[in-house]
């Protein structure tokens, strides 16, 4: 396990980016993840598409493993935790029991998302439209204008890496050092390329991209002042030496 390898300064706060797609804020003992989309699979059943009904379970087991690893005091689910209004009612018994145990064990905050403006309160935890802690503000949909300290979901960023005629597509974190976008965490959630306007329009300056690997997160693009996670990386980059991604 090489967790803890990729840390990032966001508006002065140090966050650790985990290969699962969650962010760990050690100073506040806070674990953050976005876009769980519980019961996305079963939402297709009404139209006759019976997707494997194991997505919520798969997502919850990954969350449970993270909690066992980091021992957070606070968990922030960054919106769109439930795929639709009926998702809570469609949860199976095992999923309900697992969720209840998790929300009892820590301070659990459901941030409202556009898919779940009204998350099912009976599952435990508290519901907030957004939450500010220290230098950071956690909300689902990033504000249109640059916003220092904002940590958001909603976008589902993915990045594509091409080398030597081969290509990989990975979920990713995106940050310019002021705000941070989290990848979607849910098992059935897809994504949008970071080169699309929905991402590039959010940043006034160059941003860095951190792709999820099997066991750790890899910085795959971005300016050095954002990548200054290793002590010896100079914060004064030469513009030509940096692969920019927001101006393809």
């Amino acid at each position, binding site marked *: 396990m090489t967790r803890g390898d990729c840390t990032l300064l966001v508006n002065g706060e140090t966050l650790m980016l985990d290969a699962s797609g969650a962010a760990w804020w050690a100073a506040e003992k806070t674990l953050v993840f976005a876009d769980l989309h519980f019961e996305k699979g079963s939402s297709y059943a009404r139209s006759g*598409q019976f997707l494997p009904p194991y997505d919520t379970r798969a997502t919850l087991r990954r969350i449970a493993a993270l909690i066992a690893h980091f021992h957070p005091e606070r968990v922030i689910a960054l919106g769109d935790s439930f795929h639709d209004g009926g998702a809570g009612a469609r949860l199976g018994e095992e999923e309900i029991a697992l969720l209840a145990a998790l929300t009892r064990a820590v301070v659990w905050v459901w941030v409202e998302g556009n898919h779940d403006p009204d998350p099912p309160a009976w599952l435990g935890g508290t519901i907030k439209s957004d939450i500010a802690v220290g230098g950071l503000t956690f909300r689902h949909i990033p504000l249109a204008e640059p916003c220092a300290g904002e940590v958001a979901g909603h976008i589902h960023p993915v990045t594509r890496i*091409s080398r030597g005629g081969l290509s990989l597509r990975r979920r990713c974190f995106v940050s310019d050092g002021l705000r941070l976008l989290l990848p979607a965490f849910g098992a059935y959630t897809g994504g949008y390329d970071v080169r699309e306007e929905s991402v590039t329009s959010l940043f006034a300056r160059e941003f860095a991209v951190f792709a999820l690997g099997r066991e750790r997160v890899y910085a795959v693009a971005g300016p050095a002042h954002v990548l200054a996670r290793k002590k010896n*990386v100079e914060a004064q980059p030469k513009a030509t030496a940096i692969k920019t991604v927001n101006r393809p």
Partner: protein
Amino acid sequence: MCYRFTMTAAALTPFLLPERFARWFATRGWSPRPHQLQLIEHASRGESVLLVAPTGGGKTLAGFLPSLIELAPLPARCSRVLHTLYISPLKALAVDVARNLEAPVSEMGLDVKIETRTGDTPAGRRQRQRFSPPDILLTTPEQLALLLSHRDAPRMFGHLRAVVLDELHAIANSKRGDLLALDLARLAKLAPNHRRVGLSATVADPVPLQRYLVPQSPPGENLSELVRAKGGAVPQIGILASEEYVPWAGHLARHAMSDVMAAIKLAKTTLVFVNTRRQAELTFQDLWRINDDNLAIALHHGSLAPEQRRKVEAAMAAGRLKAVVCTSTLDLGIDWGAVDNVVCIGAPKGAARLVQRIGRANHRLEEPSCALLVPANRFEVLECEAAREAVIAGELDGERLKTGSLDVLAQHVLGMACAANFAEDDLYAEVISAAPYRDLPREDFTRVVDFVATGGYALKRYDRYAKLRKTPDGLWRLAHPRLAQNYRLNAGTIVEDPMIDIRLQSKGRPIGAGGRTLGQMEEYFVEQLAPGDTFVFAGEVLAFQGIHEDVAYVSRTNDTEAEVPSYNGGKFPLSTFLAQRVREMVSDPERWQALPDPVHEWLRIQEWRSVIPQPGQLLVETFPRGHRFYLVCYPFEGRLAHQTLGMLVTRRLERLHLQPTGFSANEYALAVWGRRDLSGVNLGALFDQDMLGDDLDAWLAESNLYKRTFKNCAVIAGLIERRSPLKEKTGRQVTFSTDLIYDVLREHEPDHILLRATYQDAATGLLDVARLGDMLARVKGRIISRKLDRVSPLAVPALLEISKEMIAGEAAEEMLRETEDALIADAMRVE
């Protein structure tokens, strides 16, 4: 169609051929061929029969004569019942056959109504055909499936007397063939006394098709009757291979284009066959570059817009073209009388495929057809030579028929539920009467029905959304009529690769700001490009700029060569039969005399520097080159099987800490390399059959090819809908979501029926696991190895091959790591 006078059949004629028909033959100056009369005889006894005949043998008329004879004496009538159903793999062929049938019908003054039904038939006529059918209906397997899913199918097909299956050899061994077999089983139930006629090109072993043609009653085996038409003249096959220069690798045969052009000039009309769409593009461009006489040379392949294809076909029919560069899209189809020459660029891959293609230039049995083979590299010279010898000796590859796919069965079960409520026992009995499904265990059938009803998961979450429900008397019924509408939108077994639009970026504007559309390319190819990469499309070298909202933007370049090779390997694997013949040819120095000098010399030096393997042996060579150590083996089992072998062998080498770093595969050989000397490895253990167990499973879990197979199964089985009445789901969305679904399903329910279907498919299809298994068994104890100090002649083509399968697992991590290192190195650079 053309039938020449033959004396042999004349004596038989009066007994079988009614006066009116005999007169018609006579006025045309023809006499019925013996096989035509034999078919009439079988039909008079109500027997089903397979007719195996080369092209130009009057096969289609033979199929219809018995039906016309039965229909001729009927009185004039306004209300008709469907007498004969004709199924063709191509709608264009169905339309053409209908047109050709009109001649005898009108010339004999028969009151026989003939109609076609394809996706292009107006909705009004399709509706009418169900209530007031013609005597003879010509259609495709997909249309038949749709017709059978209607509640009035028993009325439409209840009086059916005959089914004619055209080009049966081309359709039986595919998922379309599975669907057709299931539909034939339903027809046998609706009209138990109908007979069938299968029309097939020459095949090595007709028994599987004879079995396919008639209802099975397991455990016994039923076969149709067999009629073999007399073979035609032996074709004249030339091989274009220079005595001076034969390329070491590659598939394009660009060195030979002026010779191809010369062959086109000499003939009246030429079909130039290639093996892939992009190869067609490039060959077309290459020919036009030297087309100084402005000959009418056209292009025909599957990615072209249908209107454009139709235009080419029409120009061809009118005799306005000098040549068409085409892919397998023209392997079958309308007989164009003007075609008198066939050029095959690249290796033929199978003797039967070669015969099929050569047959396109054959219109008269008694005259030999002409073909020119153009091998693109040294191994292909061997393959072409082996194919030529096989065809002249009249030997063909006998491929085993596949077992019925479970995803197709799932689609069929839903279709049958749309038609009527069913008892599970009855439908099972019907399904196993179809040859591809005769060995289907009852338990699997139940699981497929369960899959259709509620998804078939151990976790019963979808009962309240069930598509099929049990009636009080124990029958399955469709839960809602809306589902029938969905079924009809999604039926079919052909899943197209998702395509992406290619647009030219407007000068001085950002991508996404519009631009001229150049065409479409396979999405998986575009995904491999990084901004700035150059590639060939529509005959130009273009630079990839980026993707914006599902459109790939490109700009023009002045480069003459593209960085990213756009050739993606052949679509068809080398047939087992032909591979065997190539191995024999390599092993026998006496036969090298027949080969062009460069190829002959190549094998001689191989013999001197290393060794020539005997048939049945597997040669493994190891040698250093650059700062790598190589291991190259020569199974001759096709690229797909070699890729799978490459994955498995590298896994094993990794476990032995021999640090393999890559491999490449072509049709004939596999090359593996790494940082450490591979000469000491125990080859018996490395190539042991047990690699097909756990190693294969572990690799499959991460293989992109396997995920693509899963996607196809998920779409055909109806897990994912291609189209819903509400919105069109783009192929793009389907791609990513099936990968995620696959991961979750594999983790939580590894025995799910759809994963079984995927494995079954992959084993025979994309991964060729079955063939790999046969090969490993064959070479057990017969591996010979050579430790060399440098690369051997035989190894060169394998090393030059550019293998481009998408990577997964450790290799993907390695790529991420390299990208990060490069970024950091960049950021750290002090200038």
